[in-house]
């Protein structure tokens, strides 16, 4: 288990050493978004805006206009949650390289309840033209995603979890924005499980369970929600003939919807969706309790796979 936020914070310091244009802003959450180290290493390139997310985005847009690459951090519920129009107009419509980093996404802020659990941020960000939307799955991928969005010259959203999460990728794993990665292949897969974020660990566990009962699946890490890798998704649909999507987010407008848009315009196959189904979160001791309650566990994924196979064969 390792922290995605930690990976982000470490890479930010690396980037800071290499690129003097990187600046970091936060809204009274430097510690929980892991930018304290950057602030200490580069005090002149760090800005504390206070509890003021709207200023966080718009001040950063001003700095980007002046040639900087701002990384702006808060909990995802507050930014991009509170700052949609600011992002749309001052960052995206102006096509400025503001990097919105939303931490504690999904159920990570478990004890804090619905107000602090971000289950809508992917949907919000993916509907904005020009935006790049990345949801890495673990520590190493968070590092690579941070590096990649620093370099891409675009307004970008980076989605991070609060909790330490299982290690899925390593230093040598490939990462390219917009290119989905096959995590698990098999000779004759009956279903493609397409997911993003730390919940992919559940998808891999489900794949193991399914293999034990003779069901082969393919697992795809779809870390970039926008631009979506329609070639990889269409290929998976062709090869497997059925798809299950998995996300720690509302299915509506999230990865599930995104994949369905690709599938219905390309190679049409039956789909099942594992994710939050149009309900709010709530307080719990930890995110695992909430994954269970809201249906995001390996058991739920296994069930979805069985269901989609029945539909495919009927």
């Amino acid at each position, binding site marked *: 288990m390792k922290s995605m936020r930690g990976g982000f914070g470490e890479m930010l310091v690396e980037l800071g050493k290499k690129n003097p244009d990187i600046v970091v802003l936060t809204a*009274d959450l430097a*510690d929980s978004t892991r930018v304290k180290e950057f602030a200490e290493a580069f005090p002149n390139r760090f800005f504390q805006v206070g509890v003021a997310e709207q200023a966080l985005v718009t001040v950063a847009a001003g700095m980007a206009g002046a040639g900087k690459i701002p990384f702006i951090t808060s909990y995802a519920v507050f930014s991009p949650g509170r700052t949609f129009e600011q992002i749309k107009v001052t960052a995206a419509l102006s096509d400025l390289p503001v990097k919105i980093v939303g931490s504690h996404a999904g159920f990570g802020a478990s004890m*804090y309840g619905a107000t*602090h659990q971000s289950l809508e941020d992917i949907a919000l960000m993916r509907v904005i033209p020009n935006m790049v939307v990345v949801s890495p799955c673990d520590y190493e991928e968070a590092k690579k995603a941070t590096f990649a969005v620093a370099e891409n010259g675009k307004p970008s959203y980076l989605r991070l979890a609060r909790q330490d999460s299982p290690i899925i990728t390593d230093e040598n794993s490939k990462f390219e924005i917009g290119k989905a990665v096959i995590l698990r292949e098999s000779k004759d897969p009956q279903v493609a499980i397409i997911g993003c974020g730390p919940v992919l660990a559940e998808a891999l566990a489900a794949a193991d369970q399914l293999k034990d009962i003779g069901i082969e699946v393919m697992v795809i890490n779809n870390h970039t929600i926008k631009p979506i890798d329609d070639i990889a998704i269409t290929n998976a649909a062709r090869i497997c003939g059925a798809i299950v999507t998995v996300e720690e987010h509302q299915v509506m407008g999230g990865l599930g919807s995104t994949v369905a848009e690709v599938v219905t315009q390309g190679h049409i196959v039956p789909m099942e969706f594992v994710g939050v189904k149009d309900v709010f979160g709530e*307080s719990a*001791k930890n995110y695992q309790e909430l994954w269970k309650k809201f249906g995001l566990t390996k058991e739920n994924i296994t069930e979805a796979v069985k269901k989609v196979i029945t539909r495919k064969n009927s």
Partner: protein
Amino acid sequence: MEIDINNLESISGRVRRNILEMVYKAGSGHPGGSLSAVEIMVALYFGILEDRDRFFLSNGHICPALYSVMAEKGLIDKNLLASYTELGSSLQGHPEKTKLKGIENTSGPLGLGLAQAAGFAAIKKGSYIYCMTSDGEHDEGNHWEAVNFAAKYKLSNLIQIVDKNGIQIEGTVEEIMPLGSLKEKYLASDWNVFEIDGHNFDEIFDSTSKARDKKGKPSVILANTVFGKGISFMESNPDWHAKAPNGDEFRKAMEELK
């Protein structure tokens, strides 16, 4: 209303112990701001709020204080306190209107409470609407939009109480985002302004009473408080913004509250 200050002081002591117990048991919560707001909330629930009045809590992270006061007042079952932040509990980590009767506004995300209180006050002219806010929230634009609204519509039935403990998450208000003079800002925005010691019951009752008598303008009571009040090692130390005590710290804190 006949008010016995000694009684309010013993209630405040129990509320402080409840807060510590809740946060300790949950392993989560915001003790610093909860402890600074105790006397204000006790005064509101045990001597200020009349039947038609309403209380809006804007800085919802200090809900352990609110839940404890509601329990002491008999508005919720005391046994519920132990379920704070647990799956299925009506005592969410941040208060939710649809989950617990008596919660006027869902809060936690900062800067949104005053506007809701102002909207309510603009409609319910015959009652007093009290809204607690924090100093950290004064960083938020939405808060100041409500300040303008309340002045424009002369909401003299709106009484804001600022828990001015001088601390936010990562340090003092002065370090994170200096606010200048809140008093001057509110005066310039056409509000009545009172400044009090937020742990002194006489001053809380006196200022709220005067605020109710003022006509034509909303009122704000800038209540100077001590972050973490009552626990020596928490007082004025930002580390205790959102940290649960460990076993030793909990015992030490409870000892100090005896």
